[in-house]
């Protein structure tokens, strides 16, 4: 069972609330203060992605976040119920199809190429998962017929010497 579970109407205004809750639960779970900014940003990115997907495909459905203290890991899962191939789709970095992305493995879209290409929203979608991959210690993005879930985790105990 998740330590804390939140569902919210897919509106941009609620993404801030989701970030704040995730940061608070991470702190309570023993995540190092130095990592809290990364938790806040990565969870915000995952929620923004899910909100955009729901707004396009199922605005009546809530976005779900599960935060679990698993002892040595703090795990956050952000799940949407939008059909796959939504904003994460085309511009997703390696790892966005169910593969584990290791630390620092996030590959951003070619920034210079992006500047000459898509509109603001598409640019943001392209960078969203790249930012998550660059920040979370461990990321797994799973696409199923019922939606996309982004699972992220960080160490929640003090590192052993």
């Amino acid at each position, binding site marked *: 069972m998740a330590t804390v579970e939140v569902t919210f109407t897919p509106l*941009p*205004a609620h*993404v*801030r609330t989701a*970030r704040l809750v995730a940061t608070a639960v991470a702190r309570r779970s023993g995540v190092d203060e130095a990592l809290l*900014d990364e938790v*806040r*940003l990565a969870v*915000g*990115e995952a929620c*923004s992605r899910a*909100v*955009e997907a729901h707004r396009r495909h199922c605005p009546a459905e809530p976005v779900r976040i599960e935060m679990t203290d698993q002892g040595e890991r703090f795990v956050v899962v952000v799940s949407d119920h939008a059909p796959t191939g939504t904003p994460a789709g085309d511009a997703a970095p390696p790892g966005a199809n169910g593969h584990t992305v290791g630390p620092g493995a*996030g590959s*951003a*879209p*070619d*920034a*210079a190429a*992006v*500047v*000459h290409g898509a*509109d*603001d*929203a*598409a*640019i*943001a*979608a*392209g*960078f*969203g998962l*790249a*930012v998550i991959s*660059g*920040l979370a210690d461990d990321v797994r993005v799973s696409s199923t017929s019922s939606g996309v879930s982004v699972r992220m985790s960080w160490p929640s105990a003090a590192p052993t010497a």
Partner: protein
Amino acid sequence: MALEDFVDLKLGHYNKDGIEVVDVEGEIDVYTAPRLRELLIDLVNKNNYQLVVNMEKVEFLDSTGLGVLVGGLKRVRAHDGSLDLVCTQERILKIFRITGLTKVFGIHETVDAAIAAKKLEK
């Protein structure tokens, strides 16, 4: 006084030496970024093509904010202009590094340094 009574995003702008400086304070995210986008579009529509966005008081920036800044850059470049940033906060700079955007934006430590760099470009 409600719980929601927080600074989400404050925007201001002024002209200095022919360069439009945009002061941004607070959080740039999926909720607030459209306001920054509107301001940048408005400035470009009023023929301001040399922009400096001062991010020293930005507390949070996500990919939506990056998208707006890149969108602004595209708009000024279409008029042979440029959009530079002022930022010394490590947690904000890290996002630009992760996404490779440090190669796209000129990033300076102070507004004066950004303006001086733009004058050299001219």
